[in-house]
């Protein structure tokens, strides 16, 4: 079993005729993903990597039965694209696009959640399940089939850690890069819930960073609901404190949000926390 992706996943790539869309639709397919359609308004009838292109997601769904979307369209059009996918009944949406206006994200994340649609991102590398497929831009070659579920707020740092795991012979069940934006469609708790249920995930790696309180909330959730071993790494232990956002940030944070606070919370929940990324494989043994 895998998380958010399985052998029934049929991917439509929104923005397939762009550079990223073209490159990654092929990379996804090469990783074993069933990429059935692309969408670019005005380009219906064309083909990209032999994948048929449609004008609208509704057309793509009607013709190919696509149930998962990977969104590569530029930030100003991302809200439109995500809403189009939601309207067309897509069940899982991965939004790779970065620099999406936060109010757009708030809106489409709320609608996705209200419909029970799994939305990952925006500004995320997506998800990969070795041996099953991937939706997004995670580099294929770092993965190895296994039983560790990886969830990360970070992009390249995820690659670093997955790569280190693979080099040490520790494979992954599913890796979910939830992205570092302030309003993530899927957060740590959402993925931890799925990993806890997933029979093929035996251990969990959580990669966080300073800022916000998502890791503290994840720690609470682990304490209450997760029985599988969890290893974490929190980036930014030695980073300088960022410039503050008015008083509001301080009012919300109340001392949370720092690496110390996150590490303390995770350790209190029984999570082993690595000092540097390359310690993760060792802690998984």
């Amino acid at each position: 079993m895998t998380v958010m992706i399985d052998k029934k996943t049929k991917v439509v790539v929104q923005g397939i005729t762009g550079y990223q869309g073209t490159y990654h639709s092929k990379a996804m397919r090469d990783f074993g993903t069933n990429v059935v359609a692309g969408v670019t308004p005005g380009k219906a009838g064309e083909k990209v990597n032999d994948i048929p292109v449609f004008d609208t997601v509704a057309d793509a769904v009607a013709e190919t039965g696509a149930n998962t979307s990977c969104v590569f369209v530029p930030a100003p059009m991302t809200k439109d694209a995500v809403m189009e996918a939601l309207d067309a009944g897509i069940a899982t949406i991965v939004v790779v696009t970065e620099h999406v206006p936060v109010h757009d994200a708030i809106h489409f994340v709320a609608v996705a959640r209200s419909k029970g649609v799994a939305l990952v991102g925006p500004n995320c590398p997506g998800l990969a399940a070795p041996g099953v497929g991937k939706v997004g831009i995670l580099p294929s070659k770092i993965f190895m089939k296994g039983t560790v579920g990886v969830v990360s707020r970070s992009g390249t740092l995820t690659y670093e850690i997955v790569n280190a795991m693979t080099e040490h012979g520790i494979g992954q069940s599913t890796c979910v890069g939830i992205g570092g934006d302030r309003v993530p469609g899927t957060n740590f708790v959402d993925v931890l819930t799925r990993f806890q249920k997933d029979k093929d995930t035996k251990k969990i790696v959580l990669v966080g960073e300073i800022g916000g309180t998502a890791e503290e909330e994840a720690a609470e959730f682990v304490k209450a609901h997760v029985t599988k071993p969890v290893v974490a790494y929190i980036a930014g232990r030695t980073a300088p404190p960022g410039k503050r956002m008015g008083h509001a940030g301080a009012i919300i944070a109340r001392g949370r949000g720092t690496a110390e606070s996150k590490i303390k919370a995770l350790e209190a929940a029984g999570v082993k926390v690595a000092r540097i990324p390359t310690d993760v494989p060792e802690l998984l043994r």
Partner: protein
Amino acid sequence: MKLYEYKAKELLKKHGIPVPDGFVVSSPDGVKQLPGPVMVKAQVLIGGRGKAGGIKPANTVEEARKAASAILGLNIRGYVTKQVLLERRLEVAKELYLGITIDRSRRGLLLMASASGGMDIESVPEDKILMLSMDPLIGYQGFVGRRVSGFLKLGKEQGAQVADIVKRLYALMISEDAELAEINPLVITKDGKVVAGDAKVTIDSDALFRHKEYEGLEEDLTPLEAKAKELDIAFVQLDGNIGVIANGAGLTMATLDSLNMFGGRAGVFLDLGGTDDPEKVKSAMLLMEEADPKVILLNIFGGITKCDTVAKGVLEAIEMRPTSAPIVARIKGVNEELGRDMLKEAGMIPASGLSEAAEKASKESLR
């Protein structure tokens, strides 16, 4: 993008939130006439202006010019004051706090209000601050305003004024693409009016494409910061001596953490974002050489680009602007060995893993 107080207040006014009469000048000569007794306030994007002498009262044009003259040019925690806001002085009866910001945990907006506004808001106990998570599908509705004015225990008249301000501040957040809109203090004057005493508004820079009106708004940036911004590279000045270039915020921070493990300290870091675009790597190298660190640590985890192409960009940058600093380079991805060989040949110190790179750079920096 943070707005200056005067600009933030212009926005409040545009959305119908009462602000004191006032105007902004960049020279004492700009003061021709006052709307009454005023406060002269330094326009800088940093807190603690009052304590730094950046806020002074004035009753006459002469006093105001004198105050402006004292404040203009003032260096407040590293920021030089270029403009002052002259604003009618409020007769304060009570100071409230009101703010809306992004609610990461609940994935919507968070409304905050307190009857204990003013400078000490951060130390007000939690039960004295109303924190309302606003459901994006519900948005602002009358009950939100009623909950705020009820929590603040305001009478009917001020309660209605505050509720109206909450409604307008919410509309401002949405229509101006703000990520923060904060009024502190929200002043109740002695004659019962509710007026924004100070205001902080931050515009979501990702939404600037639909707000051409903010184009060209001045920002306080060093020349290097300005260049980095133009290249869409995150630039942060620290106090160590290793210059770090990495791609992705998490990886950049992990690189700093790893340096720290081996006793190294970063002096400046450039984060390219999630990309390994060779052109961007090259630009970052050029920028880094301008910052003149003792050691340069390049840590790129490649996604779809070939390492040799990235290495080529690095070599071009060095050719364009030679540096005496040792360069520790770790590039991970396709054609890894080829890239490593190219860099090694050019005299750089190659590393294959993050720990190794951090260890080597730290060692060089402590030499």
